[in-house]
């Protein structure tokens, strides 16, 4: 029975493997972090975090703004994560009101200007990221397309099918673009129902030129860089990373005012590793972390740290007036109206 012997050896080996593989299943005492920061930057920040917080075993998952929110809601009876790091303030406000966050003012709280933190101590913002158009210069030249200065120029029929923008339902970037337009184009936005906002007329015209609404906020820029589209409505830092890699891209910040979003950190209610989580949150608004963020982001919330050299400095940019509490209250409604109008 040579075969039987072989098989028993195989079974033994496999069982041994399974037991030696036990560490995968071992229960450690980690700090569990949820984030919506871009993977590319997160990898760099984590290198620093692991160096400066050597006693923490940082378990982390990166999901889009919406996916992360759904997860936290689903897990509210049995929270799996300890903290959320770099998540859109619009959603933060919503989740504070739903009672998923816990008050914690990390060390260094006083250094963050008031406009960048929750007055009651539920969240503190770390950075600001900004909507921007990314142009593929080769595609633009080949199609003899004029360079747009802002949103209004994108209505020009020459761009038909050559634009791409994120789906605001799944992408935080897409949401801030739509929200900034609704707020800029209708001075009375706060007084009327979302459905009646005059900004929708503009979005309907823009829809005629739009080649695709895509699920992620960075993908419009990446697909544009790959030559699939001429102009991608995306955000600023993905442009600089594409530029560094040698893609033929150029960035335009809309002249009407650039929509932006704050990304913030918060402790989650029911955190199982509260002590470790607080330690991480302290680090995450500290100066060394902020300096690392500033290598990618247009602006960080700790004053006195300049942004990346290859992007325009924050003071020179015209910002859209972003009303985060209004956005938080009306996010669901905005998305439903948007989906009913624009998804096929």
């Amino acid at each position, binding site marked *: 029975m040579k*075969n*039987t012997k*072989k*098989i028993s050896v*195989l079974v033994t080996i*496999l069982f041994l*493997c*399974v037991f030696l*593989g036990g560490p*995968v*299943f071992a*229960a450690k005492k*980690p700090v*569990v*972090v949820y984030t919506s920061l*871009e*993977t*590319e930057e*997160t*990898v760099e920040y*984590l290198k620093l975090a692991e160096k400066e917080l050597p006693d923490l075993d940082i*378990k*982390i*998952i*990166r999901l*889009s703004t*919406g*996916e992360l*929110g*759904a997860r936290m*809601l*689903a*897990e509210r*009876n*049995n929270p*799996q*994560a300890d903290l959320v790091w770099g998540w859109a303030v619009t959603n933060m406000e919503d989740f504070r009101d739903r009672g998923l966050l816990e008050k914690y003012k990390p060390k260094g709280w006083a250094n963050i200007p008031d406009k960048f933190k929750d007055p009651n101590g539920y969240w503190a913002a770390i950075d600001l990221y900004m909507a921007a158009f990314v142009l593929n210069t080769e595609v633009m030249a080949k199609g003899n397309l004029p360079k747009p200065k802002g949103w209004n120029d994108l209505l020009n029929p020459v761009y038909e099918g050559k634009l791409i923008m994120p*789906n605001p*339902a*799944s992408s935080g970037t897409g949401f801030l673009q739509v929200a900034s337009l609704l707020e800029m184009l209708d001075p009375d936005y706060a007084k009327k129902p979302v459905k009646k906002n005059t900004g929708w007329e503009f979005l309907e015209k823009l829809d005629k030129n739009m080649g*695709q*609404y895509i*699920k*992620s906020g*960075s*993908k419009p*820029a*990446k*697909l544009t860089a*790959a*030559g*699939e*589209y001429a102009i991608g409505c995306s955000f600023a830092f993905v442009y600089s990373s594409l530029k560094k890699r040698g893609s033929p891209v150029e960035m335009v910040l809309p002249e009407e005012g650039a929509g932006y979003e704050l990304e913030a950190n918060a402790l989650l209610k029911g955190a199982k590793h509260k002590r470790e989580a607080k330690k991480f949150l302290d680090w995450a608004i500290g100066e060394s972390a902020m300096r690392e963020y500033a290598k990618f982001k247009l602006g960080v919330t700790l004053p006195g740290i300049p942004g990346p050299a290859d992007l325009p400095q924050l003071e020179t940019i015209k910002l859209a007036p972003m009303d985060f509490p209004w956005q938080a209250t009306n996010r*669901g409604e905005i*998305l*439903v109206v948007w*989906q*009913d109008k624009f*998804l*096929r």
Partner: protein
Amino acid sequence: MNTSGKEAYGVSATSLLVDKYILTGVTILVAFLLVFFMLFPIYKILVLSFFKEGVLTSENFSLGNYIRYFGTPRIARSLYNSFYVSVVTMAVTTILAFFFAYALTRTTIRGKGFFNTVAFMPLIAPSIIQALALILLFGRNGLITAHLFKVDWSIYGAWGIVISEVLYCFPHALVILYTTLSAVDTRLDEAAESLGASALQVFWRVTVPSAKYGLLSAGALTFNLTITDFGNPVVIGGDYNVLATEIYAQVTNLYRFDLGATVSVILLVPSVAAFMVNYYVTRKSFALISGAARPFIRPSRPFRKWGFTIYCSLVSASIIMVFATVVMGSFVNVWPYDWSLTLKHYRFPSLGGYSAIWTSFWISLFVGFLGAFFTLIAGYIVEKKKPFGVQILYLLSVMPAAIPGLVLGLGYILAFNRPYFFFYGTPWIIVICVVIANFTLGTLSSISNIKNIDPSIEEAATSLGATSISTFVRLVFPLSRVAFFQNFVYFFMRCMTTISAVIFLVSATVHLAAIEIIWLDNDGWTASADAMSTCVIAIVLLMLGLLRLVMGKGSSHVMGGAGG
């Protein structure tokens, strides 16, 4: 054989009694596990879709979610879209696979072994590699569309979904049709021919009708696989919304778990229907298959031979093209501009990276073992022991095929996310989910294998005083070890490559390779998504190779068996 009434052979009454209790206990345990990990989550989904906040009281009952679903044209269209792509895929795949199976069973073309191997390749890869490859070739900036023909056409949307699903479902349909065509008696064809029927007449009047159950079954399976698939539509669907992607969108974008549950129920209806067709038809078709030895196939005429050779080569070429494109895409610098080779895409720009592949590997080993073990037990009880209520156990064991993976995953979140379910948030929940999701095929293949064990051997063992357990350990297990390892590989493969069942279950502590592929692609790192797919394929191939080495030549159909 039942164990009662064996006192005459001198087996002690107590040991028989103990044996009976053990058998009952194991039966109840398996049934309980299936109810708890399959029906309970589905029940949670049903309740959430029909009752406000998922609280089961009469005043909470509401059809509001369903009214909202059917009252919103955009969302309701996802149902039509799902049916459209599934029906088209079903038709195309069944026809393609039928002629392929015909060529392999009824003609004397050369290279059957090669064609057979190639046809089963899609089983070893993550289901989305078809979509990844098609985008590289026919995307807006695809090699063939934009650079060879310089057309402004792209594959995103319904057509992209259909083509990738056809490539993905092909081996599944082929297994069924191959079995059907090789089992049906070809002497009927010969008889018709000698009575003066033309070749076409024989084909339409004899061959096709005799394979009708196989055709129905293959069609139902393909329909089910397509309508429940999540990976391909999410990668290549573009704006084209199907039910599976709509569930994901409702939950993750709008936080509407209740609407996600509602769409899940709507998706369950056609997939359960397709499953029932398949279930009914399979039972019928077994009756048609005679145990007669395979008759001799007459040498085919040159025209026929060449025609089928060309046909099989074309189909095989498409499948090979998918794999070649993805592997190439992972090694070239910038597809399709800079063809210099590089390894840089293998430095994964993700948080999971290689540790995700590693985790996937370990979890798949566990899934392989537990899946093979439990399906063997289920098969043994159903086929040999037939205790009271065996039909219930059988139905529970084959039911998972009717439940879309995404729905099962969503059900797991709803049902098990409680502090007292210690396994939530650990790798175990993924292990359990994947084992359950693939229980059907495992059980069916165990049953058909155990059928082949001569009952008289077992009777002899029993009369010599062996209990059920010792019979199982010392007789059934060794005799069905080939089935055990086939199932091991099947579960291992499924776990390495599945997406829909686990996308809601991966966590900060457990990253899986197949999900990383989706995320890499979603972030625009297509080449790294190709690289990760290549790693997964390599691991599955290594496992297959290892097993074949150990099991020897006798099990050279590990892949085919696993697919069946």
